[in-house]
């Protein structure tokens, strides 16, 4: 601590006080979300499996479709009916699986919604806090 005391003086220059800062900051604070283990598991595994299947089928169909593009680039007629059927089946089953996924209970979505609601409603407040370092 500095001990620079002046009483009844005519001061002509700024008095430098090295220990002027207390180390207290005004910070922003928001209540944290208490994530339970079961909720963490739901986020990790709670997505309906049909979404993953829909994804796999969609990607395979895209690959197959690209093959057909290569094959039918010069003459579309060279693509057989069976190949068109396979492509359509891929697209349809991928969409169907995705829709089924939407209809199934999605626990992951519920937890994510709950977390989102928490952060929307939890007030943000600023408060002074002492630096711990």
């Amino acid at each position, binding site marked *: 601590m500095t001990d620079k005391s002046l009483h009844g003086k005519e001061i*002509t220059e700024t008095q430098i*006080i090295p220990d002027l800062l207390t180390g207290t900051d005004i910070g922003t604070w928001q209540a944290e979300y208490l994530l339970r283990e079961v909720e963490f598991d739901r986020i990790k595994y709670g997505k309906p499996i049909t979404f993953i299947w829909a994804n796999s089928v969609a990607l395979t169909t895209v690959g197959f479709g690209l093959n057909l593009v290569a094959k039918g680039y010069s003459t579309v007629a060279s693509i057989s009916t069976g190949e068109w059927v396979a492509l359509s089946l891929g697209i349809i089953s991928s969409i169907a699986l995705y829709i089924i996924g939407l209809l199934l209970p999605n626990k992951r979505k519920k937890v994510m919604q709950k977390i989102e609601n928490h952060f929307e409603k939890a007030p943000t407040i600023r408060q002074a806090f002492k630096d711990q370092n």
Partner: protein
Amino acid sequence: MITRNSTPKNYIPFNTLIICSNTLSGGGNLVAVGDVLPLLIGKGEIPKIWLQALADSKKNQFITIVEESISKHPAVKVYEESGSLNVLISEEIVLSVKILNQDTAVVEKLDFRPIGLNMHGDLSSLTAGGGTFSGNSMSGGGTLIGLGL
């Protein structure tokens, strides 16, 4: 940020400012941290106060918590009572200023510890860091207390 080189447009300093028994004349400031002026007290029907708090003491960043005597922060209250303008943080008085006449204002109470500055005082003296100041005078518009950064 309010600095020596950028003060608000509506800020007109008092010719005489008596801060905890120390008299600053000629439009001087109480305190500067580097170039930042945490407190400005300007002329007005009620005193116009600008107050900045340390947002990050490591980076020397300040945020304005009172602007032209209006609170900019939920934890800060500004109100006038029997001719004095008071600034409160968490129900503690941080600053109390009274106008004596058109050219003179008096800081009756000051406690900047909640906003990160080690300064407090009342009508008899001002304590800043480890030093106390009372009955001093400074003219020419200088800054009484500083922390060079």
